[in-house]
């Protein structure tokens, strides 16, 4: 008999587990059969509805109907719930298909081994094999499942929303249905005057903010680290401790606190300025000053992190490089420019790019401090300090313009992900990690 593999494969394709049983792997086969049985019950009742749901997004809206002469509200299809239910079912279906394919391949492979005269593994042997050779994959299964349902599924969902008309006031379920509209939302965002004006305005400020906040905290932190690390400065540990304090206070607290400190009317900062006979500044209410304030406050929050990071790097710079420079008669400034700065830049460049990407999405700094205000009359639901990310938040939670928010989210994601991926693929550890071992 030389046709085990074909038979086992076909049997498994017909019903999961049959091929394994044919291969005399009874426990494994029964497990597969159980899986398929559960899957069949689930998919028979759900799969048709999932395909219907994802193509139509529901067909009957809520409506008034006469029941025994009294008008009554009859709940219709809730498009968004239907969308997410269908999505979950389809994801399960994809997982099932993958499992089904693996089951066929497994039956086929073991069938082939039997043809070569090797007996099929017993159940304990299979378990051992997985523990020894498929360890990583089985290790990744559990976290992978979590990520699939709590990260990937929501992302797919949000991407889908960008292609619907899910927005107030006309398409909010359960009262009204939602429909697919293709690229219309993106077209509106990028071309339609009322939206595009806000989009490009907010995008410009987002980039300016990301550059300024990254540069100020980075070089601020470098300055502080170098100051403390100078030869002859005493109580280094104490200085470090003191300057780290802002880092240890939860951002939520420190930003809410700063909002109070910089309050134009009651805030202590303006009151102190008044004490010295100076006029207070409209820290949070004037568009320009509000931008200055968020940058300054962000320095207060962010410098300690850069300081820690750069102090860490400073300790790794070899002493003899400085000694060599001294022998050549270098001044302090020259030593900094030729040895210290390149060393710091070299080892922190990846972090710098990541901080830049993170600042594009720095929700807390803006939301807790200014809430995106002051209001900008020319903008569509955005204030002067709103970043793309906070604008998106307002569009979703305050305005119910969910499709527009999703479109912005996708664009934002492409920008940020592009940066980080480029950055990561260039790092040494990704390219040649096996060489360090």
């Amino acid at each position: 008999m030389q046709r085990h593999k074909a038979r086992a494969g076909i049997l498994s394709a017909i019903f999961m587990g049959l091929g394994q049983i044919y291969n005399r792997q009874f426990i494994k086969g029964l497990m597969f059969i159980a899986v398929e049985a559960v899957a069949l019950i689930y998919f028979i009742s759900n799969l048709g509805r999932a395909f219907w749901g994802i193509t139509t997004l529901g067909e009957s809206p809520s409506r008034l109907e006469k029941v025994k002469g009294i008008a009554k509200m009859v709940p219709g299809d809730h498009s968004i719930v239907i969308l997410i239910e269908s999505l979950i079912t389809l994801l399960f279906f994809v997982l099932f298909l993958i499992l089904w394919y693996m089951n066929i391949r497994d039956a086929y492979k073991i069938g082939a081994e039997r043809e070569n005269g090797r007996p099929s593994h017993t159940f304990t042997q299979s378990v051992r094999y997985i523990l020894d050779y498929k360890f990583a994959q089985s290790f990744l299964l559990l976290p992978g499942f979590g990520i699939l349902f709590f990260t990937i599924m929501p992302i797919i969902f949000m991407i889908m929303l960008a292609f619907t008309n899910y927005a107030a006031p006309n398409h909010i379920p359960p009262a009204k249905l939602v429909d697919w509209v293709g690229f219309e939302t993106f077209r509106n965002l990028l071309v339609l005057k009322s939206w595009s004006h806000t989009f490009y305005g907010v995008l410009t400020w987002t980039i300016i903010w990301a550059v300024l906040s990254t540069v100020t905290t980075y070089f601020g932190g470098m300055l502080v680290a170098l100051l403390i690390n100078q030869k002859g400065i005493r109580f280094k540990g104490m200085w470090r401790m003191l300057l780290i304090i802002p880092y240890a206070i939860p951002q939520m607290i420190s930003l809410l606190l700063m909002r109070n400190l910089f309050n134009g009317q009651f805030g202590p900062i303006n009151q102190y300025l008044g004490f010295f006979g100076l006029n207070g500044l409209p820290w949070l209410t004037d568009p320009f000053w509000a931008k200055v304030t968020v940058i300054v406050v962000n320095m207060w929050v962010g410098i300690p992190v850069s300081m820690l990071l750069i102090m860490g790097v400073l300790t790794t710079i070899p002493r003899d490089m400085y000694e060599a420079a001294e022998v050549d008669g270098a001044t302090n400034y020259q030593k900094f420019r030729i040895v210290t700065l390149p060393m710091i830049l070299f080892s922190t460049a990846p972090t710098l790019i990541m901080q830049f990407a993170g600042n594009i999405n720095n929700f807390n700094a803006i939301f807790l401090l200014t809430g995106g205000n002051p209001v900008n009359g020319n903008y569509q639901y955005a204030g002067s300090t709103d970043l793309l990310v906070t604008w998106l938040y307002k569009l979703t939670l305050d305005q119910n313009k969910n499709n527009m928010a999703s479109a912005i989210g996708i664009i934002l994601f492409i920008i940020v992900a592009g940066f980080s991926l480029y950055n990561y693929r260039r790092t040494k550890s990704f390219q040649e990690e096996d060489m360090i071992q």
Partner: protein
Amino acid sequence: MIIGRKAANFIRLCLSYIVLVALAVAAIYPALWILLASFRPGKSLYSKTLIPETFTLSHYKELFTSPVYMFGTWYANTLKIAVFSMLIGVVLTLLTSYALSRFRFKSRKTTMSTLLILGMFPGFMSMIAIYLLLKEFNLLDTHLALIIVYAAGAPLGGTLIAKGFLDTIPRSLDEAARIDGASNFGIFTRIILPLSRPMITYIALTLFVGPWVDFIFAKLILRTKENWTVAVGMWDMVNTMQNSNFTLFAAGAVLISVPIMILFGFLQRLLVDGLTAGASKG
């Protein structure tokens, strides 16, 4: 050379000390201000003097006794959520980073890039979907929901940093153990875990602090007041009272910040290691 080397050095040090003192004042002032405000009688935001004339603990007492602010309950809730999501999150993160650091399999690099990209996705963009998902499973307004979501997201944040650290543990140790007959799991628990204690602490700390201060997501999920976390409670305090009871807010802020500051103080060294490991090893 008009001024001698010594004099120049002296001037440099003096200037440095002046700058350092100024920076230190700027760093501490707001923190000190909120701490002292929490002991100040009355409710107002502003006071002429930094140090209050009389000290009172009444704001702290009010936080725990007032029927409006269930601070004690919030505090316990937050502690519970933070501890559990930290424990599960650490395990998940270690599993992924160990698998990615020590094993070579087909889709490994893809997995790593995917993790990196997914981690960059703005979190609350997926909130609506997660909200609906939790509603499906009847988990809204429960702490379990928060724990699941925080823990499930943990590998996205910490895996690549932890993997960078695990890469520095020499592979020869594993091989020696394998020759001695250790299984993959044995190597993980007996060699990798003890050696990566600094990294575990770092990950655990970040995973603990995350839930401790997160309010956007907690606010969305937790509906009833007795289920709130401190972050939601504090946010509500500022929002509904329009900062009219600032000293009470200050007392709450102190109670939230102090445990974290103590943790940071203890783990300062490890934090530096964690940051730099993430920096130079990707």
